[in-house]
């Protein structure tokens, strides 16, 4: 019966983020939070495993103060308990910092047989957290997993790679990052939503975890984030002869360095 932990990120819903036309800066003032899409697959996979094999699922997240908004949401999706680390450092955290915080938390609340994460987050999609977390914990890491079977302490995973499909087995404990195709996350029923409030959650502070300001400082600091808007040139060639239009198009592309 596996003892599972799912690590998830509370991100902004990208559909709610607007790009300001004047300077391409992002307006996220009205954006709602959500559990990062691939992390929902990780939560679902852990819930399915435990429904089938028994065991337990807990959830862990590191984020800004907003991460507290995620607790009932995540607890309505299967986990029996959630742990959360809310710290302003998460605003600028890179994958190294995130993995450092998660590893420290896992050392405190663990051990776990299976530690599941989404392959990448909805906002940054760096795909770095799982391998860095595994390295810090000294555990094997299976990434790009689209099928998972557990029997006793043996995990059999199918990994979807660029040019091949790899089936591997590994003994627990292990860190696993999953792809979206591994399952279809459940839609919580109303009773699951309402019972989430009764499940326990526990805050862990960075001080509890013995982390220093240096541990929480990213190597690369993000100065700004700008949206990308494809500008149309709106050039219409109006020559009568098609060949003349083609010639003008060729000339125009050449002037842009695209010939």
């Amino acid at each position, binding site marked *: 019966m596996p003892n599972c932990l799912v690590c998830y990120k509370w991100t902004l819903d990208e559909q709610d983020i607007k790009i300001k036309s004047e300077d391409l800066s992002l307006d996220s003032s009205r954006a709602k939070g959500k559990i990062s899409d691939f992390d929902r697959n990780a939560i679902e996979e852990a819930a399915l495993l435990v429904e089938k094999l028994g065991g337990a699922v807990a959830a862990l997240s590191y984020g800004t103060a907003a991460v507290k908004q995620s607790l*009932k*949401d995540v607890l309505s999706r299967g986990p029996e308990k959630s742990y959360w680390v809310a710290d302003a450092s998460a605003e600028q955290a890179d994958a190294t910092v995130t993995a450092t915080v998660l590893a420290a938390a896992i050392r405190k609340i663990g051990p776990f047989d299976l530690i599941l994460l989404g392959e990448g987050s909805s906002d940054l999609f760096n795909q770095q957290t799982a391998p860095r977390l595994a390295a810090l914990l000294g555990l094997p890491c299976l990434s790009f997993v689209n099928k998972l079977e557990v029997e006793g302490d043996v995990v059999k995973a199918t990994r979807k790679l660029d040019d091949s499909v790899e089936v591997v087995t590994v003994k627990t404990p292990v860190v696993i990052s999953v792809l979206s195709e591994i399952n279809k996350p459940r*839609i919580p*029923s*109303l*009773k699951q*939503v*309402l019972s*989430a*409030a009764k499940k326990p959650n526990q805050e862990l502070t960075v001080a509890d975890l013995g982390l220093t300001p240096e541990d929480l400082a990213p190597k690369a600091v993000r100065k700004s984030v700008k949206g990308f808007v494809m500008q149309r040139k709106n050039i219409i060639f109006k020559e009568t002869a098609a060949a003349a239009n083609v010639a003008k198009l060729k000339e125009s592309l050449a002037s842009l360095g695209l010939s």
Partner: protein
Amino acid sequence: MNFELTEEQQLIGQSAREFGKEYLEPIAVDLDHTGEYPAKIIAKLAGHDFLGLLLPAEVGGAGAGFASYVEVIENLSRYSAAVASIVNNHTIAALALELYGSPEQKKTYLPKLAKGETLGSLALFESGPTPGVGPDALTAVKHAEGWVLNGKKAYVRNAGVAGVYIVFATADPALGAKALTAFVVDSKTTGLKVGKLEETMGLKGCPVAEITFENVVLPETAVLGTVNQGQAIAAKLLSIFYVAEAAQTVGIGQAAVEHAAAYAKQRVQFGKPVAVLQAVQTMLAEVATDVHLARLGLQNAALLIEEGKPFEVEAAMIRSFLVRLGPKMMLDTCQVEGGFGYSEFMPLPRLFRDIAGTVLLDAPGDYPDKTIAASIA
């Protein structure tokens, strides 16, 4: 004063939105074309506790409040108002039993209604000017063992698929509506016949039919509440129903606004998206405002119901507001999309029909104004 939904209410709304996106969006167009009752979807809704949302946990319901309920109806309606209408008609029948049922009636029906094993329906309207009056009025005649019902009910939603009907009949034709009495009638009762399904303008898939009662014999225990209490029960249930239907209208309106806005951003005319043209902006701004204000009125009425406070005037106000502005929301959004908006391959014609189905049925045109005026003058 707090206009913010609680975390639970938001999550319940999110759950309904995810359900709508996953299960209703793919079937909405087919449902509109075929009008076939979506039995599998209703079973899925039951599995997610949407059919027992308002019923207490003791009978297997979710025990959520009315503010959560309107969140669910709005979000389901964004994807299929027909399905939301089935839920609304089921829920109002379940609520009738919860509010007025005897312990025995509750024990018999509420657990099945909460789990969605049985669907509920309200059989209130008749072809006459008001229930209990007119040549086809349903009458209930007292006899030694109980009651005998004869007559017809019109525009019964969930007709043919419901397992239990809350039926209103006059216990004294001379008194008409004043003697209206509610009965709990099992769909298998001998003499109850569901007529041919009506072909309706909108909300296709929510079955509507006439029900005929021919010497339907009911025991005394079938009376809901007390004899002659039917008019008061109907008034209360309809007031609640108007708020539930307002949620349906707001959901349809929201879907229309989102579709029109997305269209206006990608439709290029005169070298730029039509979304930057002032005439289009005015229409989008007006309809978005109408939907927003309607939602606030709706949430206010829903909260009053949840808190057990008087809500009838606010329910009438939101009904009145949406009877006027619901169809306008559709005209405005169709206008934004021009000829495309008018075409059946776009969703707005379906939404237009669904909003008509929501605001045209269930209430005499002057009902809300009478209630509102009586409260102030």
